[in-house]
């Protein structure tokens, strides 16, 4: 994301102009927008024209509109952001107060104005504009008959394709059906790789499976690549890396990212960092349960006691449209930071962020144990 103009004071009104450059920037923008903000962007409006003879025609016009945001929609598969709101600035085609939906486009600037810019949002703008964090990792997590092709960017884990095929088991005296179905499966996965992974952006392609499926697949892949003279695969051969995982399901991606061989090769993927922080939390929960809290009420109490060492919080909580609740979370983050704690904001699109969401979305590792006083109070988990 490119920052064009910034006119902000912390905890005050202000506006910022940005240009989204890639799909992930749409995700960042989704996390910046709040109901009640004003968004100014170029968009297409269908205009009804009435000619002098009375006949009505419609045409599509490109114009710049400023909306007061009411609804925000994010399609994670296509990474498209659609914002609906009412027009708050005089425009020759659109009346004041009229509804319009802007679909934000890549490489077109937009201006976002808010009444209050808090620390969380400012951090996200910095993160989005940071050119250093651009590692893209592709992963194929598979087992016999099932493969998930996944793209891991710093902020998102996107499922690009899923291949599911029934493979007949080996039977007494007849293994041909099994072998044939397996080949068809590998062929489908290979097509998936060629179609969905763009090799110039992707730094590394992990192939993970339990057992020997991964090795079989890699040898099939390169045998076919040689046979079909598929240059793109042969040139990028070094990017393929074989890793062990316990299953072919999407959540096994966590294990893959934690594998030491992988971490050595991709030194700083944000996704891996999040997984590690989450694992640390679970370890603490197992060993010293009084030093691991989750749920807003518990964590707030711990924060008041200046006990929070590491705060794990999901970005989903900041997309909460109720301003009062949102500012409660922001206050929590600010408090922890002021007291020398670390804050890790998890992306909901990553596997560990998803798991954190299930666990109420906020968790903390404490510096010292705090007795669990209110056991009877039911959490809204």
């Amino acid at each position, binding site marked *: 994301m490119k920052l064009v103009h910034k006119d902000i004071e912390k905890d005050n009104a202000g506006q910022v102009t940005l240009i989204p450059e890639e799909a992930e920037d749409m995700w960042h923008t989704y996390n910046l927008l709040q109901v009640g903000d004003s968004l100014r962007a170029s968009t297409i409006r269908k205009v009804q024209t009435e000619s002098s003879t009375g006949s009505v025609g419609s045409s599509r016009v490109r114009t710049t509109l400023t909306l007061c945001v009411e609804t925000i929609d994010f399609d994670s598969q296509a990474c498209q952001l659609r914002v609906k709101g009412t027009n708050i600035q005089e425009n020759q085609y659109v009346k004041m107060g009229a509804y319009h939906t802007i679909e934000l486009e890549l490489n077109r600037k937009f201006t976002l104005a808010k009444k209050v810019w808090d620390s969380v949002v400012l951090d996200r703008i910095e993160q989005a504009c940071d050119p250093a964090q651009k590692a893209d990792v592709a992963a194929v997590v598979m087992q016999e008959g099932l493969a998930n092709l996944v793209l891991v960017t710093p902020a998102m884990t996107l499922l690009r394709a899923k291949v599911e095929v029934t493979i007949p088991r080996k039977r*007494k005296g007849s293994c041909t059906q099994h072998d044939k179905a397996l080949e068809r499966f590998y062929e489908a996965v290979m097509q998936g790789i060629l179609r*969905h992974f763009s090799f110039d952006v992707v730094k590394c392609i992990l192939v993970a499976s339990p057992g020997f499926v991964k090795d079989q697949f890699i040898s099939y892949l390169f045998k076919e690549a040689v046979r079909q003279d598929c240059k793109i695969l042969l040139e990028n051969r070094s990017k393929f890396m074989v890793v062990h995982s316990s299953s072919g399901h999407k959540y096994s991606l966590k294990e893959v990212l934690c594998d030491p061989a992988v971490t050595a090769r991709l030194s700083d993927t944000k996704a891996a960092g999040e997984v590690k922080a989450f694992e640390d939390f679970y370890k603490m929960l197992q060993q010293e349960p009084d030093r691991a809290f989750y749920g807003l009420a518990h964590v707030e109490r711990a924060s008041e006691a200046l006990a929070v060492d590491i705060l794990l919080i999901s970005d989903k909580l900041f997309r909460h449209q109720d301003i009062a609740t949102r500012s409660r979370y922001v206050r929590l983050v600010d408090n922890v930071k002021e007291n020398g704690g670390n804050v890790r904001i998890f992306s909901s699109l990553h596997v560990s962020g998803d798991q954190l969401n299930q666990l109420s979305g906020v968790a903390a590792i404490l510096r010292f144990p705090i007795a669990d006083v209110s056991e009877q109070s039911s959490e809204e988990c």
Partner: protein
Amino acid sequence: GVSAETPSKSLAMNEDSAAPTPTRPTGKSKQQLNIRAELEKRQGGKPLLNLVVIGHVDAGKSTLMGHLLYLLGNVNKRTMHKYEQESKKAGKASFAYAWVLDETGEERDRGVTMDVGMTKFETDSKVITLMDAPGHKDFIPNMITGAAQADVAVLVVDASRGEFEAGFEAGGQTREHGLLVRSLGVTQLAVAVNKMDQVNWYQERFRDIVSKLGHFLKQAGFKDSDVFYIPTSGLSGENLTTRSKVADLTAWYTGPCLLEQIDAFKPPQRSVEKPFRLCVSDVFKDQGSGFCVTGKIEAGFIQTGDKVLAMPPNETCTVKGITLHDEALDWAAAGDHVSLTVTGMDIIKINVGCIFCDPKEAIRACTRFRARILLFNIEVPITQGFPVLLHYQTVSEPATIRKLVSVLHKSSGEVLKKKPKCLSKGQNAVVEIQTQRPVALELYKDYKELGRFMLRYVGSTIAAGVVTEVKGSTYPPFPTKHIVILYSSAFFDIAS
């Protein structure tokens, strides 16, 4: 391949089919067979037993059973000779017997069983469906499928110095397999203390292993009276089908050989009177119209011409043919591991894990259910939202633990704590589980065999449980398009 050289058996079959066969039902109504009487008659008085062979990788399961089959005459000499030559050429001479059961090229190349190898043999009083399970940790999902269909089990351990210990320690499969089969309902176990020739049939070693294993198996829930220990050597063939004459062994061991012990297992009661249930473990296209599904009949019985309902797809089809151990039959009952040829349904709708049932008394399908679970030795505590892999019969489906309802007292079952923060090892708890796609299942109280499941996480089994309540929508209109699209996503792009 294995040729069925059991002349006495085929004679018995012919006699039975010469006996008054039940007349083909004309209409759609099921013939009122006195199924128990027919079942007795069919086997010539020999009940069917499903046996699974389990144990740590390289304990010698495949070799042990392969050699047993050979000694019983189930493998013809020429085929055996071929295996010996080919395995020697491949540099895997000691695997010759294992090749009887490990048939895929991959398995032979790597010397590892990857999927359950299935075959049949006979003892004096039983007909045994043998399932040779993989021992490697990565293939446990396949092993669970085999064990879910078993009535009894043979646990193979390697008696060699250091090997038993490696298999029995935390990372080995001896414990996990033992726990798994017990959790899946197996109560009788024969432990083959294998490779005893490597330790010269030393009695102390045998005693040592028996006492360590005995302690563990008792904790796992096996009754001492239902566990038997047999010293064997799979490679040399000692003490497999006949009592060994080796002096080192006969000096202190007077017990039965492996085959005798298998023969002595008590066959379980079959629920033939309950509504028909079959769990699909394989789907493939055979010659002719329609397609084949294999699986074990868990309850009830089936006849050719019957209409059956597949859940969760919620589709009906007709049974055109029934095959049991390569022989065509008119009917089959609970306990039989059969191949059904069905027509009237698209093969794409069925996958491993579907359950075929009686359309009039169908099984429920749901995405959410409540269960009572027992947690094993887990490394991380279980919290709400924990992602797990649900293993139910032949199904393996990703799921989440939606709610931690309560923690129960281990023996009394009373509620110790409601809405716990997390669950740790060894606890007994009630939880709610949600699956991504509908799963057809039964309550434990209705069908003991169909009410159990296992939960796995990152390659380890973390809990065993029983289904207590089905929640959420039952009979959801299963999006059949779901499987179709995923199948054709192999060829068409749907992700974007």
